[in-house]
């Protein structure tokens, strides 16, 4: 009973996914909703704005530079978390002194 | 090129299922590295070479080494 319910739910979710994939526009079509004014702006004006031929690098490091600063902060927080868990020198010093 | 794409996606799905079914954690990590490598090839076919570079360097290289380091500190079997 429980297994049949699981399988029914999975089949329903699979049908939902296939139905939404069929509705998606084909990749690279000119009528895509993602092919809008923003794409035109980046393709036409990137060289004028930043002198960089690599449009992706220009978007990451110039137009969306604040977002990249956030990613660098995520790396920083991850390294703080790992060193605070693995290298607990503060706790070791307290154990050597003997005051728990 | 279409057939190559389909074969790559089939390998990808097989690797993803095999990672979940494997009991040996070291073998699962190696299969996960091959998953990342097929993903990098797919990014290359989707014309995103910078993402392919990042996936090959971080997904197949650094993540595997970090997982192996953690397994050497803990148990190998699930």
């Amino acid at each position, binding site marked *: 009973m429980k297994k049949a319910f699981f399988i029914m739910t999975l089949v329903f979710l699979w049908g939902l996914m296939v139905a939404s994939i069929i509705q998606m526009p084909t990749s690279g079509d000119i009528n895509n909703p993602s092919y809008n004014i923003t794409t035109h702006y980046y393709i036409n004006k990137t*060289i004028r704005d*930043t002198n*960089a031929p690599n449009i992706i690098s220009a978007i990451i490091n*110039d137009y969306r*530079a604040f977002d990249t600063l956030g990613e660098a902060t995520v790396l920083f927080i*991850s390294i703080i978390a*790992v060193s605070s868990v693995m290298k607990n020198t503060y706790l070791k010093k307290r154990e050597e002194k003997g005051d728990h | 090129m279409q057939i190559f794409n389909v074969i790559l996606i089939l390998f990808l799905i097989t690797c993803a299922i095999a990672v979940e079914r494997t009991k040996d954690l070291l073998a699962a990590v190696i299969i996960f590295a091959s998953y990342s490598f097929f993903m990098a090839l797919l990014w290359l076919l989707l014309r995103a070479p*910078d993402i392919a570079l990042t996936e090959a360097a971080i997904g197949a290289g650094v993540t595997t080494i*970090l997982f192996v380091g*953690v397994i050497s500190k803990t148990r190998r079997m699930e």
Partner: protein
Amino acid sequence: MDDLIVRTVTKWIVPFIQVYGIFIILHGHISPGGGFSGGAVLGSSIILITLSLGYKKASGIISHSTSALLESGSIIWYVLIGIVGIISGNNFLTNRGAGFYMGEVGDVISSGMIPLITVAIGIKVASTVITLFHTIIEED
């Protein structure tokens, strides 16, 4: 790992990997690549040294304090580049309006602050990878 073949091949191949990583970082605004992938390649070369030649050799090249200094320094460098935009009277992280050297299209030293930010991200990612692996593998 104490094996002659692995040690010899590592000594031969590490400079080429590092040159490739520096190439990816410095050409981030011209060809595909950028700070994240180049930094990962650079960090992987140091991890290769740790795995084949031992932890002592790798920490002689880049120690824990040096790595921590590079991490904090690169993110401060990023924020300072952004503050140049504020000082010149524009928004945070402005490129052309802040008076950076723009140069010719296609040169390595061109397009303002983009190579500076790419170098900062590359150093940050490389030192993060090295510190993560050394912290995990370190004997206590």
